[in-house]
């Protein structure tokens, strides 16, 4: 698997953890352990996004990620154009 797909998989993993903790916290807002886990994964996710974006352009638009030098937001491939090989 190429570097880009490996980086995407890592972000997907972290983001999935964040989504799942987010939903759990919605109904368990007092759970301090879940909150600590959420904040830890949010930190790591932010770092992973920044690394990815420096290589392949913004993951987020509307001002949430900068686009240095050129407007890279519209660059292909878009998410539905990226498939992952079976062996990956």
């Amino acid at each position, binding site marked *: 698997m190429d570097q880009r797909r490996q980086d995407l998989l890592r972000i997907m993993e972290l983001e999935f953890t964040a989504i799942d903790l987010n*939903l759990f916290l919605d109904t368990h807002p007092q759970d301090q352990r879940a909150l600590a886990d959420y904040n830890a994964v949010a930190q790591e996710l932010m770092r992973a996004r920044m690394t990815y974006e420096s290589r392949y352009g*913004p993951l*987020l638009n509307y001002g*949430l990620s900068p686009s240095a030098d050129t407007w890279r937001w519209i660059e292909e491939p878009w*998410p539905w154009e990226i*498939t992952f090989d079976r062996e990956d």
Partner: protein
Amino acid sequence: MWVYEKILEYPIRVSGPNPRLAKDIITQYGGPDGELAASLRYLTQRYSMPIPQAKGVLTDIGTEELAHMEVVASLVYNLIKDASIDEIIRAGLDAYYADHDRALYFVNAAGAPWTATYIQSKGDPIADIHEDMAAEQKARATYEYLIQLSDDPGVTDALRFLREREVVHFQRFGETLNLLHEHMERRRVFY
């Protein structure tokens, strides 16, 4: 406000053109228990929820369902994009092709278009969350049927992920229902 993130929630693997499987899976795009219905149901029910947990759960699950809609769309897109006319006819996707070519459209497996009558927004929070719990079970069951119908292991893997999320959503809605009951008891409202 919503923000688009340029990444799928789950990686997709597709072995090759498979319009027959696309024809079945598209029901989770625009069918009665599909992701569009789920997302719109939750995102419209949230406005009349009386407690913050319910507003949060409906907003966040409704948003995650949009991401699932994109995963399903990406599977269908990749299953039909290189399919030949011959394969499309043999798969029985020719009627769909006549109206949509290989584009994505909101239909169920039999080709019926999406309709707002698939969903309800009752205003009664207990009734709405019960509907949502039933919706999650129906979506889970649909993914199980699709897993039985799948002959592509990569697609099956994504369907298993989506099925598992419905189980988690059901759990969160169940907790929301309990919180709503507690809230209404405190307010001495009869239900």
